[in-house]
């Protein structure tokens, strides 16, 4: 890539980042431009990737140069896929049911056994397993196994509504709430960290683009945006003063 294009890219990236951040001050036309560009560019990138990496090699090329069997293997799923689009034409939307039926059957067949094994059986096993050799575990492992087992039972009981939560049941259910609160707290803390990491990523790029190598892109654009907001405020104040007179 030429040096000029790299600098141009830096200006575009810095401008779009600052335009989007400007929403934190208030809604403005620059934010709207960046927002629409983001959606448009994202869809464009997605479409070209899917077209050149999937549609061309997996559909168009076999149709052009494949054997009879290969062509049939492409045409059948393609027709099923295309049938989904008929959803948009009410008169023939019934055709889409064939595609959806295939999708439902295929997805359920793939997901149910695997989901049961991975997320249910294995997790139940993971909770029970440490108790099979409980006394050979270290003190910390014993404590860990007990906490997991108690937490699982209490949280499950909290979501079991066929028994009235009173007496001992209420206490178990309350312990379940504490476990959930710990989970939500840890989850929220990590969310804050993740958001700061993303912010750091953008700021790091902005600082990088404020160097002489990129012709001070960040600084110029930030100054331009500030000028715009100051000018806008001035115009509003003057207009208000004039109308008051």
């Amino acid at each position, binding site marked *: 890539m030429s040096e000029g294009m790299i600098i141009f890219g830096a200006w575009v990236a810095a401008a779009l980042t600052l335009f989007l951040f400007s929403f934190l001050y208030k809604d403005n036309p620059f934010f709207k431009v960046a927002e629409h560009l983001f959606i448009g560019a994202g869809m464009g990138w997605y479409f070209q990737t899917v077209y050149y990496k999937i549609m061309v090699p997996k559909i168009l090329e076999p149709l052009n140069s494949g054997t009879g069997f290969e062509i049939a293997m492409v045409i059948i799923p393609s027709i099923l896929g295309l049938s989904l689009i008929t959803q948009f034409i009410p008169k023939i939307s019934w055709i889409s049911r064939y595609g959806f039926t295939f999708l439902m059957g295929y997805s359920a067949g793939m997901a149910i056994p*695997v989901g049961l094994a991975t997320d249910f059986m294995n997790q139940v096993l993971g909770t029970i397993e440490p108790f099979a050799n409980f006394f050979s575990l270290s003190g910390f492992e014993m404590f860990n196994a007990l906490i997991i087992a108690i937490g699982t039972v209490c949280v499950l009981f909290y979501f079991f509504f066929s028994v009235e939560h009173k007496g001992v049941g209420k206490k178990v259910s309350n312990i379940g709430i504490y476990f959930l609160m710990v989970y939500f707290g840890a989850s929220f803390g990590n969310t804050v960290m993740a958001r700061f990491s993303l912010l750091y990523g953008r*700021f790091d790029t902005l600082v990088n683009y404020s160097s002489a190598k990129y012709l001070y892109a960040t600084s110029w654009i930030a100054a331009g945006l500030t000028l715009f907001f100051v000018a806008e405020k001035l115009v509003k104040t003057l207009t208000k003063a004039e109308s008051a007179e």
Partner: protein
Amino acid sequence: MKEIMHKLLKIDRRYLFVLLTLSILIPIIKPLGLPNKSISKDVQNLYNFIDNLPAGSTIICSLDYDPSTAPELHPQATAIVKHAFKKNIKVIVVTFIPGSTGLIDELFEKIPQQYGKKYGEDYVIFPYMANIVAVLTQMNSNIYSIYDKDKDGKDLKSMPIMKGINNYKNISGIVNITGTAILDIWVAYVGDKFGVPVLGGVTAISQVGYGPYLQKGQIKGLLGGMKGAAEYETLINEPGKGTSGIDALNVAHLLVLALIIMSNLILVIFK
């Protein structure tokens, strides 16, 4: 005094945005060099797994993140690929997210040169593929029934790196770096089903949710967010974007803690 304190609680949030901006910008402009001393067990496990693989082994790196999560996940992917190259481990790159193709190109533009690695011999990049479940399932029978060409349309079977690679039996491990739920799919459809060790790198947000998989050993090791990347960079002794980000994260977290404590104290003392 009470009035001032209560006004402070209703402060325009844009002042807080400015404080937060400064808390992240200042460490970038002038690094504080705060240490990153703790290495979590899950990060150590991932490091040990890669480190103990014999030279010449092949791993699949599934890099499934786009620019929206790149600040957290790109440093993770960079550190793991560097470690693999250091240990002379061959890397097959796959992706199931259209937005990650550009980031993968960027990643492999410079790193292989630093370690003298050649495309087609030491690493290869497969093209983006849709319908991950079908792809992962089919790859157990024959990788080439799904991927017959690389990302540039070159024949895969003729590449030296693919010699002896036909299905998961020839793969030593899967490392999935993702900001989506794709790691769950690798665990369910490849790790649990075919017994291939699965390791991951995820955003800090989703890190907590992988506890059950780690506890059961369905995931052998995990990097969480930028902190995970920094820890891995420490282990391979290659400071990068993860390590430099720790300064900013520490200061920003301190600011948030200070604000939470301050507002609670105001509420308690001046109620």
